[in-house]
């Protein structure tokens, strides 16, 4: 089996332990993230772990990539300290405000620039966005297959990858040929911790920072202007309980209940 070249897409997200401190900006409809520490998106750690296990078995190289503000260098160094060989950060004001399509477009362009790859691994969804769209969209932009909800990955002979894809009840087995994109779920593995041995190395490693000018892209397709979806509103839903008392004998009350449920659109 030949060595496997993997690229792992990672994203820094606000630390869930500090979510109570996040404030909603009512004007821009975004979260105010200043002062909130970031962590690597938990599912991305599972993706990175899987890439490292594949490297330990077959050899190869693992590159971490992210599209984020410059502060994400810390997260990429963390990825290196966990075991990634190198890292690339796409960072530029023109990337800001991107929805999943514009994000995937930029990431795909960067991946094209990195050259040939065998696997792209992503966390199935991010803790803050939760769409699960970026993995499949990257695959489409690159013209390669993708499998989501991957709970087990086996690399077989001749570049075939066998994936167990989780369903609500059970799983399906899909085989595909590298190169392809895989989005993983947490059942796939237990991620390793930062190796203290690698901390010095990670702090001294060069994290390549690419701006939009370093990529072969159409600048109208990145950032806010490249985003066909816009956030219309961001609010904390108010949960209220409303109670209605229906009176009468059992058969009258039950007819009334069915009528009310129909009116409410439940039935």
């Amino acid at each position, binding site marked *: 089996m030949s060595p496997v070249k993997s690229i792992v897409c990672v994203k820094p997200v606000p630390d869930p332990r500090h979510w109570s401190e996040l404030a909603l900006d009512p004007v821009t409809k975004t979260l105010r993230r200043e002062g909130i520490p970031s962590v690597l998106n938990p599912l991305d750690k599972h993706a990175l772990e899987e890439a490292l296990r594949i490297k330990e078995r077959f050899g190869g190289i693992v590159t971490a990539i992210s599209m984020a503000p410059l502060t994400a260098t810390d997260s990429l*160094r*963390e990825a290196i300290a966990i075991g990634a060989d190198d890292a690339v950060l796409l960072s530029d004001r023109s990337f800001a405000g991107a929805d999943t399509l514009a994000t995937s477009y930029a990431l795909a362009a960067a991946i094209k620039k990195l050259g040939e790859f065998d696997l792209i691994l992503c966390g199935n969804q991010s803790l803050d966005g939760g769409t699960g769209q970026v993995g499949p969209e990257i695959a489409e932009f690159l013209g390669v297959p993708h499998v989501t909800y991957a709970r087990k990955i086996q690399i077989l002979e001749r570049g075939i990858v066998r994936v167990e894809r989780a369903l609500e009840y059970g799983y399906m087995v899909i085989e595909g040929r590298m190169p392809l994109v895989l989005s993983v779920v947490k059942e796939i593995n237990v991620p390793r*911790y*930062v*190796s*203290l*041995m690698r*901390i010095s190395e990670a702090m001294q490693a060069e994290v390549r920072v690419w701006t939009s000018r370093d990529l072969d892209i159409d600048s109208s397709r990145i950032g806010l202007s490249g985003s066909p979806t816009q956030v219309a509103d961001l609010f904390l839903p108010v949960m209220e309980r409303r109670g209605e008392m229906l009176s009468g004998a059992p058969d009258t009350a039950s007819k009334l209940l069915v009528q009310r449920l129909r009116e409410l659109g439940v039935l």
Partner: protein
Amino acid sequence: MDFALTPEQEMLRKSVREFAEAEIKPKVQNMDETGKVPMDILEKMAKLGFMGVMVPREYGGLGMGHIARTIMLEEIGRVSAAMANTLQITHLGISPIVTDGTEEQKKKWLPLLARGEKLSTFAVTESTGGSDVMGIQTTAKLQGDEYVISGRKCFITNSHLAGVLGIVAKTGEGTKGLTAFVVQSDFPGFRPGREENKFGLRGCNTGELVLENCKVPKENVIGKEGDGLRIALSAISNVGRPGITCAALGIVRSCLEEAVRYSKQRVLYGKPISELQGVQWNLTDIYMDYEASRLLTYYSAWLRDKGERCDAENAMAKFWAAEAAVRCAKKTIDVFGAYGCMRELAPQRLLRDAELLIAGAGTSDIMRLVMARKALTLA
């Protein structure tokens, strides 16, 4: 004067905290109730390089310094002082080999100790003397190519876990009459004795060592015959004592977080008790003790990293942090009220853990003696 952590130190702190919260925190209650050492956590720490934090890189360690070690131990101590003490004593056992070992000894012992393949400890204290090191009675007699060591050590951390131990024994009289040896737990004539049942730091193994005509090759002498007192006092001052200090600092930090968090949740008289000034005075006392302990701890680590001799500063940090831990744990119980006395909640365990740190690696009274020597030179 830059008080900030470097990005490398910040990554270390964050990584150790993540490990401590995910792996150690769920086991803390069980450790306290059963007194059993969670060996699986020690194995995980070993794989991540925790035991070898100050072992030079060429021998397989992390090659980090005292500030890095302080960060590591504070973060572990914040979750479990028992685990912090278990780990820090492995560093203590390793250190004489780093400072005084021959190249052969370093190549033989350091890689496996840095990897945590074998755990370590350093045994000085006996029933006839701990504070009074010269009171120890374990003897080591040279017979041909071996020393024959007989005696009993007590209150030794990792007594039943360590595979490679530093033992100090009498080879003569007076201050040049002590020698330090590397003893392996599988040497005939060596065995762990009774295991102590402590009221705090439970889940950290403390016990006796029994040496009955234990034969130790003369290649296992650390330094030279007669160097034992210097080696012991230096290792304890620079590694063992600061290790206790960091565990104590972790307890003070934990007290601060527990007291603040509880007081914001507990509603009495129609509002959180954190709004009551009386409760706030407790919180600020703990906060001040944390910052003061922290500054003394990191300052002494900084001095050690510069290679400066700083026994007084090491003693001051230990005295302050350990006494603060006891003080702040009591204040935390006070903030919790009756809940503070319940075994399911943290405050009572923090107090019990803290009290053990007063006597460890030099009692508070001995710390005053060490500081007095420096204080008397200041005018």
